[in-house]
């Protein structure tokens, strides 16, 4: 029996738009076991990103509970949630959001610096992670010297810096061309096969097909779930998944 890393129960998120309440997430329950890779898909505005923000403790549910590794993130105060995001969750964003004034290595070091990891250790781990994502030789490059795909790899390395329990990715291939997107999917697949638990929100069919489980959302609710590869099946998922 695998550990349940993430357990969401009847999660709701309402917010007002021009005075009218919008029910962005309507009573979602979801379990994610260690080593799983869940892709959340659905039409624009169906609440995928809102759900991801709630799971990542950067937004609070109106009702329901979200437990990550046994900690109820919905009831954490700002300081606790911030600390939890730092050490417990890795974020990958569609637009990479690297710090433009820092090198690739320094970008990866940033969360470790915040977590008070000694300098020597964080420099070594940043190099190790950049090598893992295939950018060992570009550690001293700044974001503007890197392609979109390379920037997203740095962002993934940054997300993994503090060895989080869960990697959350919001449209990670959304800004990439098809070829680079495929390479990114292969990288996610490798990460997952190496033990990283991943939840991705995506419109990218190819990325969704690579996940172990696909969750379909519509109007703020889960309408379908498909297990494509059960946990324990470590065969490469996507075509050309050889990042």
């Amino acid at each position: 029996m695998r550990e349940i890393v993430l357990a969401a129960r009847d999660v709701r998120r309402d917010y007002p738009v021009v005075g009218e309440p919008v029910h962005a997430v309507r009573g979602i329950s979801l379990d994610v076991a260690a080593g799983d890779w869940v892709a959340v898909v659905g039409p624009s505005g169906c609440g995928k990103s809102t759900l991801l923000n709630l799971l990542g403790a950067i937004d609070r549910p109106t009702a329901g509970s979200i437990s990550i590794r046994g900690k109820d993130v919905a009831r954490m105060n700002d300081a606790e949630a911030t600390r939890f995001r730092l050490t417990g969750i890795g974020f990958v964003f569609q637009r990479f959001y690297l710090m433009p004034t820092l090198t690739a290595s320094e970008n990866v070091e940033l969360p470790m610096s915040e977590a008070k990891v000694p300098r020597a250790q964080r420099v070594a781990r940043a190099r190790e992670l950049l090598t893992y994502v295939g950018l060992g030789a570009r550690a001293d490059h700044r974001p503007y010297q890197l392609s979109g795909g390379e920037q997203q790899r740095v962002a993934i390395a940054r997300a993994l810096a503090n060895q989080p329990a869960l990697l959350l990715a919001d449209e990670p291939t959304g800004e990439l061309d098809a070829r680079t997107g495929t390479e990114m999917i292969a990288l996610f697949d490798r990460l997952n096969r190496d033990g990283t638990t991943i939840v991705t929100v995506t419109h990218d069919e190819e990325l969704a097909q690579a996940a172990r489980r696909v969750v379909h959302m519509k109007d703020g609710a889960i309408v379908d779930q498909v297990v494509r590869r059960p946990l324990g099946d470590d065969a490469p998922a996507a075509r050309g998944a050889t990042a």
Partner: protein
Amino acid sequence: MMLRLALATLSRRRARTALTTAGVAVAAAMLLDMVMLGSGMRESFRGFIEQQGFQIRLTPRGTMPFDSEATVGGGAALVQAVSADPDVVKVAPLIGSKIFSRVTAASTSANTPPSGADSVVAAFVLGVVPAVQGDYLIVEGRELAAPDEMVVNASYLAATGFAVGDTVQIAAGYDAQMRRFAGTRTVRIVARARFVMLGGTERAAALPLETVQAMGGPERADRVSVVMVATRPGADIETVRLRLEAADARVSALSTAAALKFVDERLGYFRQLAFILATVSLAVGFLLVTTLVTVSVNERIGEIAVMRAIGVARWRIVAQVMAEGVALSLVGATIGLGLGLITAKWLNGILAAFPGLPAAFDFFYFEPAAAFRSLGLLVLCGIAAGVWPAWRAATLPIAKTLREEAVA
């Protein structure tokens, strides 16, 4: 790493940062100049008073030294009475008046009289006791040693064409219509001197006290304008002052502190203006830093939201944004310090050329503690300027900001 990030953010928009820093530097320079100006005249005046070496001045009741032409009779007795005070170590009576110098081609030694032949040059004259005087410093020549000797300043020499060593004719009065002199005397110029309290362009001379009194006829016999009093070290100046004032109802006794207070009152508007301009400088510095930091935060709103999302604490964001304000203020204040000193020197040169001001009078007085206090205040303003944009950055709703950034 946060400090590095703050500095890197500033260097990201070099031209904008440089312009803002220049603006802060100008504000800092103006602030420094206003602080220097606020205390400069007072400190200059204090320097002059202290340079003379007297702590108390006795003047005709209700007047300030040389504020009017009022004099006190019985000068010798007054000096004797004051000298008898156990706390008094030196007494220097003075009389201020005018002399008229007759300038002819024959009367000059080498130079042609600048005002033309047979002209009359008026000058302010001090009657002094040479052994105790503190009103002039000899630049060339020697101190007065006889009743018919005279010390003059460079302006007098320039106006008359006389030189040190010349024997000249002077008078206590001159009727321009009748071209008639009164109270004439032939004296020898024995020195060129710098008169402490007089402007560089003002013509001035000094004669022995009894000579000036005698030249004025019976009206000026044994009269004095001011009696300068030096007290023994350790004496309570205020007590001595009150004692001297009580001893003779005809005189007012003015201490250095009272003289400075008088100057303070006279310079009140000047100081207020300096204070207002200094406040404006601080406000300008504050607004410049606030504007730049706010613009910088607005540009990086997505980055800041991501930093919060990946677990950077609020206070670290606040510290990073405020560090930008502090760095701008510190660099601006440091440049402003140099700029302020340069502009103060330049402005001092312009203002010191005003007629009637002592030659060495400084409008801008550099007092390191006050200068650093004011620049410290500017840096504090820089810190305060970063508070609002920093707090705004730190309290951004992360999810909403990321969503809006994605849409943008």
